[in-house]
């Protein structure tokens, strides 16, 4: 199931999260983060996506934001137009949308 959510960060840019969730194993299988924000270096977006893929579906918005802040600081990356909090919020909403989708009969 794929869930999508888009947020306009106040005073910032647009961030859209696409989350693929497998209800059978309860696993987040893929996360794509898109939008008109800036991340320096650009490839760091993949580090963010990998962190999000490896979260538990029950992790709170606050704990996700804290994990993102640590990752950003450790790697010396710079975000412009988005924040760890806005990424966490968009991700949580996209994941909730993915989980809420009915499983269609094969």
């Amino acid at each position, binding site marked *: 199931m794929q869930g999508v959510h888009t947020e306009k960060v106040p005073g910032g840019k647009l961030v859209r999260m696409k989350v693929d969730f497998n209800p059978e194993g309860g696993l987040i299988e893929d996360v794509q983060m898109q939008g008109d924000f800036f991340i320096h*270096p650009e490839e760091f977006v993949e580090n963010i996506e990998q962190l999000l893929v490896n979260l538990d579906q029950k992790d709170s918005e606050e704990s996700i934001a804290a994990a993102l802040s640590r990752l950003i600081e450790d790697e010396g990356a710079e975000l412009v137009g988005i924040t760890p909090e806005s990424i966490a919020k968009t991700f949580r909403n996209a994941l909730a949308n993915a989980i809420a989708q009915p499983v269609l009969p094969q």
Partner: protein
Amino acid sequence: MPKWRVIDLTVNTAAMNMALDEAISEAARTKASLPTIRFYKWLPSAVSIGYFQSLKDEVDVDLCKRLGVDFVRRRTGGGAVYHDSNGELTYSVIAHEAMFPKGITESYHLICGWIVDALGRIGIPAEFKPINDIIAAGKKISGNAQTRRKGVLLQHGTILYKLDVATMFSLLKVPKEKISDKFIADVKQRVTSVTDINSQISEQQLKEALVAAFTEGKEFEFGALTENEKATAEKLVKERYAADEWNFLR
């Protein structure tokens, strides 16, 4: 004070324009080339998208193909831009990071200040609007995007000369039902161009003002691309900017 190379207006395909920015960045990194200011246009007209955007979500690719409009993913973040062959000028500034303020916003402010100066020279009062825009008469007239790699700063941006809102938003994905007369009127409340403000200003005048403002106080020479830059760019066109793997990356 470092000397700059200024490459006067050239016209290229979308893939070549993005490849040239990268080839020049590589040459500037190794100091094979001077720090460079470059002005260019896009032929055919093209849509560029930010590094983090989804081409399919942002652009009507089928319509681009039907109309012969190019599309390309930039290596800078930011939003989708319609580069009308007759409606905008694009610039790039490529130099070692150490020549600019460390802060991203501060360096946007500095380089965007050159555009504000250029617009002032043709009688258009404008101002920098963080994060990366320039506004005139309260509306966006220029969008800019920056990346820093291997110690080199690349900032490129567009200065709108003549607006074609209907074409712009048929190529950029907004729900078709939204492209009504009202939608177009709404966009015109938020976006402007040099000729919207003063229809008497020629594209040549705009370009000359940009060259004058960008080189103000700098030691510089007009120069051309090196053979090495051209060859690197040709390679990058094939391997990256004209390749679906890159353009449809997200």
